[in-house]
């Protein structure tokens, strides 16, 4: 009788039942979509962090230093130290990432001995800058410099500020690629932690000082390199032993070298500018951060969580959109759906005053009638849950399919205050911004489905309670008097 009555009632009031169910479904679907997108963005952030940071790396330690005056010397060029190719000059300069201070390797060992630290390795990020331009212009600049002027001295003339190649700027081109000196004893921790080997292999213990290199797939393609080829860096040739791709599709480092070789390239033996730390557990990360900060007060200690806050680009926007607008929109629609369901149910009970009055007159107790109203409401909730989960999954799939790839950028370099030629070149060199492209996903898991069903049922219970409350308050005599 109960189920027959419930089912027939809903069939009789199809439009109202459908409206209530659709309202709940819409609210639930939005919650599913927003939650799925949020989860997808969260996954994307994890991927980005892995890519930029290395799988298994919990904390990185760096040190920012002001660009030294002596760096100017590195940007200076003369006809003596460039290679002439036709009418053009070309000069490659390998430098440790400017603005990044170095640590002694002993610090790495000290950190690895700390409590809650599972492992720690050092790395050295390098930048190779290739400056090319008009050879004749370089000659003229050199002569001008010798007579007291020259490029790289002070700010540019008014109207020529910035790094752009505006009117009056020297006709040069700067291209850079990044390199990383990697501790070959533990390639899982550090920049190689997030790569997949496309061809060849990674470094192996024993290759600490070998002239071997691993290159990113895109760099290999650009330079037409393959495993077994020779790559010239500085004055030496390195054998390419592997090509790799970032798991997240990003391109951080172009060339990986054994740490010792990287140190020698920039005369920084025994020094690193990145320390990668793996904590014993996720819970101990803050404690590890604190201990390292105590050991190295001048260092910047960054966890993946800190890095996540620095992520900008469309991923950051998506994250912010999902967190703020999406969440509030879902809550607003859900609240509206609950309210509409409640009001419709109450209105439905009011329209059925005679019916419930009659049932009370023939001996039905209030709680049985409340149960009937609740049953009808719950069935609408179930329908709403099914529709909502369906719509939500469909919406999540569409969002994942139609949304463009997310771009994430993390900039950890110092700000460039200096203008002019030096400023421009330094800007190129110091730009440690790494951009990663991530495919947007919107995963809908069992927990999310259960949450959606729970919300729809909660809405139904809310509506049922309102309707039931009204039904219970009906006094049979008044209910019948109203129609007689």
């Amino acid at each position: 009788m109960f189920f027959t009555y419930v089912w027939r009632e809903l069939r009789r009031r199809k439009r109202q039942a459908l409206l209530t169910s659709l309202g709940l479904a819409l609210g639930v679907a939005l919650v599913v979509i927003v939650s799925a997108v949020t989860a997808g963005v969260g996954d994307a952030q994890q991927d980005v962090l892995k890519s930029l940071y290395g799988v298994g790396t919990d904390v990185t330690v760096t040190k920012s230093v002001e660009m030294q005056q002596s760096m100017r010397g590195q940007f200076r060029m003369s006809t003596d130290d460039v290679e002439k190719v036709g009418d053009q000059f070309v000069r490659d300069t390998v430098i440790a990432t400017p603005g990044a201070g170095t640590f002694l390797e002993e610090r790495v060992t000290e950190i690895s001995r700390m409590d809650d630290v599972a492992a720690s390795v050092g790395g050295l990020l390098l930048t190779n800058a290739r400056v090319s331009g008009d050879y004749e212009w370089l000659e003229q600049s050199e002569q001008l410099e010798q007579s007291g002027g020259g490029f790289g001295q002070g700010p540019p003339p008014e109207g020529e500020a910035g790094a752009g190649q505006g009117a009056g700027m020297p006709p040069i081109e700067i291209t850079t690629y990044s390199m990383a000196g990697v501790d070959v004893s533990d390639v899982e921790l550090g920049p190689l932690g997030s790569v997949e080997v496309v061809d060849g292999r990674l470094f192996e213990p024993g290759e600490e000082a070998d002239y071997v290199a691993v290159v990113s797939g895109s760099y290999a393609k650009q330079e037409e390199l393959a495993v077994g080829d020779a790559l010239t860096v500085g004055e030496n040739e390195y054998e390419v032993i592997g090509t790799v791709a970032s798991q997240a599709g990003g391109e951080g480092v172009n060339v990986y070298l054994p740490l010792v070789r990287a140190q020698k390239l920039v005369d920084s033996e025994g020094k690193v500018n990145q320390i990668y730390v793996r904590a014993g557990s996720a819970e101990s990360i803050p404690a590890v951060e604190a201990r390292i900060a105590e050991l190295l007060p001048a260092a910047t200690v960054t966890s993946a969580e800190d890095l996540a806050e620095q992520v900008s680009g469309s991923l950051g926007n998506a994250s912010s959109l999902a967190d703020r607008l999406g969440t509030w929109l879902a809550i607003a629609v859900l609240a509206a759906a609950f309210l509409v369901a409640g009001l419709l149910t109450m209105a439905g009970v009011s329209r059925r005053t005679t019916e419930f009055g009659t049932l009370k007159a023939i001996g039905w107790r209030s709680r049985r009638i409340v149960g009937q109203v609740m049953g009808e409401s719950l069935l609408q909730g179930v329908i709403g849950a099914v529709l909502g989960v369906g719509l939500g999954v469909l919406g999540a799939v569409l969002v994942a399919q139609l949304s463009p790839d997310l771009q994430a950028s993390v900039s950890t370099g110092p700000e460039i205050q200096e203008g002019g030629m030096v400023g421009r070149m330094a800007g190129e060199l110091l730009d440690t911004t790494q951009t990663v492209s991530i495919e947007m996903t919107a995963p809908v898991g069992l927990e999310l489905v259960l949450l959606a069903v729970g919300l729809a049922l909660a809405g139904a219970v809310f509506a049922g309670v309102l309707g039931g409350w009204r039904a219970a308050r009906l006094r049979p005599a008044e209910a019948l008097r109203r129609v007689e």
Partner: protein
Amino acid sequence: MKRLDIEIEEARTALDQSGLADEWSLPQPVPAGSAVPRSAAGPLYRLDAVQKLFTRRGARVAALDGVDLTIQSGEFVIVMGSTGSGKSTLLMLLGALDRPSSGTLSCEGQDLSRLGESGLCAVRGRLVGFVFQSFNLIPTLTAVENVETALVPLGVGAGERRERALAALADVGLSQRAGHVPGELSGGEQQRVAIARALVKDPHVLLADEPTGNLDEKTRDDIVGVLESVWRERGKTLIVVTHDSAVAARAPRLIRLHEGRVVEDVRQNGTGVVSRAADGTVAATPPAAATAVPEAAGTPVGATAP
């Protein structure tokens, strides 16, 4: 039966809490087909100075104003009166749908005015069968399912419920329409379903509020015939509120209300054996014949002066 036992037990608890347990004995479940336990001794209803007040636009209005009445078990009573005279209110009180504002209303010796909602609900579920002017059937349920609704509060199992509902429909001549929803039935058929619903639980009293008000003349006669047969053949107490003098003429006793007071209480079966005791009790003679006696021919029992 288990469900009924639970509900009776809950009603008992309510009575215990109100201190009325000693005064009120709740009905025991009656198996299907068993004889109705008629109250052989004493009146079915006794009303002493019953008053029912309503508040309308801030003013207190007496729908019933000092009604004294006694209705014996097995009587067929017509209640008449103009709109607003209090006849429907009287029916609500007799049907345990409401409580008097003051005075005493007892049913089978028990005071309904002191029962809580739970106790009243138990009385409605077991002792009283209602028939309404607008039939008040559940539009989505079939005829047999509508009849079954009356057995739901008694906790009757699904199988027995269906069996008894079909039997009740057969009693009112509607077996062949058992599977039809109200919208597929004529007014007369719907009222028959409503009567079957009222009778299926074997109540002690059948209360009908304008049962022929929405019916044409021929159907009205059919329905009155069905009600009469219920009274005559099954010995049920039948109390009918009506405006229809043709219906009123077929009952042995007529009570007329005016502005909440009983202004006329007559026997009209021609026997003339009607008396009114000092306590207001009308000594009703069992009907000797179904012959309708015009209202005008009725013997005044002594109107209660307004």
